[in-house]
């Protein structure tokens, strides 16, 4: 049984898109989680105590690139199946929700945000304290999205009426 995920990555264009998303999102996560520094020198450093957090960042980046790319392809195939469109949209929404989960990155901004930062900062601090469970939740959302995309019935193509009649 063909898998939409496998089919997507057989197409070089989609593979390039996935690699681009993987690098962009991965670099962003590693930078914001302070595993990657650009100033004053380019530095990559993972403290031993942060190995789990680092692994979750990589998993999130890989899953996000898969979900977004397959979702875009499913939407491109929307003429064939309404189910594929729905799954594609679900995938994009899931990726956005999963990406929004680590919103504790707001803390550096809120540090100098004045009175508004006080209330939102408290939320950021709370989220920051639970960043590993939050990333686990985001990973589960993305795994669910991959599952739904693979079972979205993209192969159930409704043939146009004329072709159907000809075959009869």
């Amino acid at each position: 049984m063909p898998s939409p995920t496998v089919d997507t990555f057989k197409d070089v264009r989609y593979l390039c898109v996935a690699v681009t998303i993987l690098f962009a999102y991965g670099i962003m996560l590693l930078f914001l989680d302070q595993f990657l520094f650009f100033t004053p020198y380019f530095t990559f450093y993972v403290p031993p105590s942060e190995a789990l957090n680092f692994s979750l960042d990589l998993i999130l980046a890989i899953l996000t690139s898969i979900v977004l790319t397959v979702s875009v392809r499913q939407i491109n195939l929307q003429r064939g199946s309404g189910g594929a469109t729905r799954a594609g949209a679900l995938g994009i929404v899931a990726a956005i929700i999963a990406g929004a989960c680590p919103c504790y990155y707001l803390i550096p901004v809120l540090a100098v945000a004045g009175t508004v930062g006080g209330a939102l900062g408290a939320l950021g601090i709370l989220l920051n304290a639970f960043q590993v469970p939050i990333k686990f939740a985001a990973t589960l959302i993305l795994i669910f999205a991959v599952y739904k995309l693979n079972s979205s019935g993209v192969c159930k193509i409704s043939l146009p009426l004329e072709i159907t009649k000809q075959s009869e």
Partner: protein
Amino acid sequence: MKQISQGIAVSIFLGLILIMVLGGIGWHLLTSASSTLSTTMSTPVSDETLSVAGTTISSSTPSSTAFNVTAALISGSPPILGSPNASVTIVEFGDYQCPTCGAWFSTQEASLVQNLVNTGKAKLVWRDFDFYGLDSVSASEAAYAAGEQGKFWQFHDLLFQNQQIPNGGWASRQNLVKLATQLGLNMTQFNSDFNSGKYDSLISANHALGVQAGVTETPTFFLIGSNGKMITIAGGQPESVFEQAVAQLTG
């Protein structure tokens, strides 16, 4: 035709994601690096604030003149670890409740002290940048109160060693008194200093100085060479980066 328009829509969608990601990183880099290499600012903090911080900006300095961040960072009498004659000054802006500061303390500070401070290459200066809440301010006050008895750095270390979830109560005034007792301080003097409120203006001034210097996260370090050159290290970077920066400033 429909396929082409779909292709354009997909390209726009992916392009927007890429722009947002790269824009976010760019913005963060710009705000973090806004104070590198002898930055001057046209809007200094108020003279009253600076006098509290003990900086060299005199009250006669007109507000329109350029404000030298480098001079302000190394002036006054903040807590210093190491030889006062060390050629490089490392000014750390931190919050005792900040998890990244705590992680940096437990994994990097000992190496930095051993390789740079104890060897006389650099001295470490602490300035508060309290933004996690009132417990952060209380922790800063307690550290300064311990400093009155010559134990600022011991209390500073004790705070980070006991750090837990921010605002979870570990840095409440009651617990800070317990930590002071643990350190063997004269508690009558400590309580008097701790509850006097005399450090509030200093803590506020340090925060204002940090904002002026471009601090957007903690910990942020400003490494200042004897020639006035400055390198900013934002975030909990490994100790090797500090060694590289010190070599660059002294080389």
